[in-house]
């Protein structure tokens, strides 16, 4: 053991580093285990209302689960692919109306209506997305999806004989029992909503880890470069848009029996803007971001009963400030913190610690 290399030349700094370094492994452990902790927390959050909670908590939980699932699905196209899909709420509403019409009008079973609705949504998204995505810059997509969203809302509000017009449509059915479980009760609907949330998370998780996901990120960062690298940019953008629209439609099918009522306001562009705000708040492009954002935006005010108007003003301010100064959102902040902690561990040498 050589003594020449010991850093005792600067005793104060060594002590400081020793102290910090001694703490660092614990924080680092925390940092590295956070994803697992995150999943555990999520599991607890999901199980809590499901286990014998009050009817109201179940209702709240279902609402939040649906919103979180929506935010997660929007994250796929906005966060990972970097595209502005302003039609997200429209597809949500489309899912609700389409499946309601299929079930009430055509006598299709609820569970079968889900893939059917998703298929219809996929076709619709492809038709809208393809002409819009051929151009770079994203503005075309934003405009066209915004226009489509408004058109869809107008249709829902005016195609009175089919959709019931501005008064909306009453939904009288409940999902049939599946695999022996009844999904018709409020508890059952809660599990349906959380199931959809988990499915959305799973899809985004898989995409994140796949080649497709990495290509999406490349497209988001620099389209021309991505094309140069051989990635079919239009196909990737389109796929992301179609997938996230399909997911939105899927979540919409759960909304109909849950609220027993659907109205054209579901398709409002303002709902999409709220979702974007939630994403930015929680952290775009991360798995936990949408969930954190939804909990903060919906959960807390709902419990505090803050007036809707002021909530939206604050969300708007959050969007402005967040996008300018904190583009990574809450989740991103946490992540930066974690990185710092894990980085500290690397600095320490075993000899210094022993001292």
């Amino acid at each position, binding site marked *: 053991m050589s003594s020449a290399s010991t850093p005792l030349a600067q005793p104060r700094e060594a002590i400081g580093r020793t102290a910090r370094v001694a703490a660092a492994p614990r924080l680092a452990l925390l940092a590295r285990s956070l994803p697992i902790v995150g999943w555990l927390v999520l599991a607890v959050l999901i199980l809590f209302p499901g286990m014998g909670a009050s009817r109201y908590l179940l209702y709240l939980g279902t609402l939040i689960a649906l919103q979180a699932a929506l935010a997660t699905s929007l994250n796929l196209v906005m966060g990972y692919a970097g595209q*502005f899909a302003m039609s997200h709420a429209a597809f949500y509403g489309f899912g609700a109306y389409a499946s309601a019409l299929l079930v009430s009008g055509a006598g299709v079973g609820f569970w079968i209506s889900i893939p059917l609705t998703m298929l219809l949504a996929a076709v619709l998204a492809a038709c809208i997305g393809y002409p819009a995505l051929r151009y770079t810059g994203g*503005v075309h997509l934003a405009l066209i999806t915004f226009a489509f969203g408004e058109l869809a809302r*107008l*249709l829902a509000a005016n195609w009175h004989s089919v959709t019931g017009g501005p008064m909306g449509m009453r939904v009288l059915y409940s999902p049939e029992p599946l695999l022996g479980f009844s999904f018709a009760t409020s508890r059952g609907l809660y599990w349906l909503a959380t199931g959809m949330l988990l499915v959305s998370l799973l899809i985004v998780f898989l995409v994140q880890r796949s080649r497709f996901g990495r290509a999406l990120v490349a497209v988001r960062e620099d389209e*021309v470069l991505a094309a140069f690298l051989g990635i079919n940019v239009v196909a990737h953008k389109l796929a992301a848009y179609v997938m996230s629209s399909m997911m939105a439609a899927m979540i919409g099918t759960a909304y109909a029996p849950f609220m027993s009522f659907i109205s054209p306001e579901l398709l409002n562009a303002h709902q999409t803007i709220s979702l974007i705000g939630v994403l930015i708040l929680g952290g775009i492009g991360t798995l936990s971001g949408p969930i954190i954002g939804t909990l903060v935006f919906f959960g807390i005010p709902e419990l505090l009963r803050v007036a809707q*108007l002021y909530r939206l003003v604050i969300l708007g301010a*959050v*969007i402005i400030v967040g996008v*300018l100064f904190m*583009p990574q959102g809450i989740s991103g902040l946490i992540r930066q913190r974690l990185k710092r902690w894990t980085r500290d561990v690397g600095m320490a040498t075993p000899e210094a610690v022993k001292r």
Partner: protein
Amino acid sequence: MWIDVAQTVFDGLMVGGLYATVAVGITLVFGIMGILNFAHGQMVMLGAYIAFFAVTAGFGFWAGLLLAMVAMGLFGLILERLIFRHTLTDHMTGLTVSLGIIMVVENLAAAVFTPDHRNFDPPLSGNVQVLGITLSAQRLLVLVLVMGLVGAFYLFLQKTSFGKAIRATGQNRTGAALVGVQITQITALVFVLGSAMAGAAGALYGSLFAITPYMASGPLMKGFILTVLGGLGSVPGVVLAGFLLGLAESFGSRYFSAAFNDGYGFILMIITLLFFPTGLFGVRGKARV
């Protein structure tokens, strides 16, 4: 029957002119700064309220119109300086920020003004006979004013040095800088002018129709449609598209179904996009990838 057609034409021109007044701001801001400013519609709404308060306070419509233009011009300047200045490099950020602005402005307005419909007495009332056609006097006034505003704006762009600088910046930012155009000044000017026009449109809207905090989405959507139809960044394109749209809506509602009024615009937009992807006067061609 011809009288009816004439009245429908006149109405379509008026409505289209109003849309165009809103849209020139959007298309110009997009052309110069690459930002799609979703919050533009809020200027229309605020302009309407300013005119409303001016009239009910006794200052009269003309003062209200002027005040709306000045106030919105200032508001546009503030927005540009404080917020949009920072998003010049990242257009998507600019779009997102404008979404945030919508939420703040609209909901604050709803909280402060309450959602009740407001109306104020327009400067002219009743109807007049022009060439045997009965026309609403106020609508006629609005048409004249709108033509005046848009015409003046167009002349400004064509004839003045500021206007030429704006057009130069729209065509090629670097080139314009090279010949000595103060880009920062120009972008601020564009915002101010566009917002002032929107404010004027708002005051004019308010003189005819009900004012609510949520009235922005209609003009905004029409503005976007015109921007796409006319070609992103093209002012003459937007004006022409505006009149076309106004006529389409007017005739569609009059002779077909009035229940689907807004739909005609969308159909027009979709058809145009299919056959003229860069709009009628497409100036900016984007790289096809």
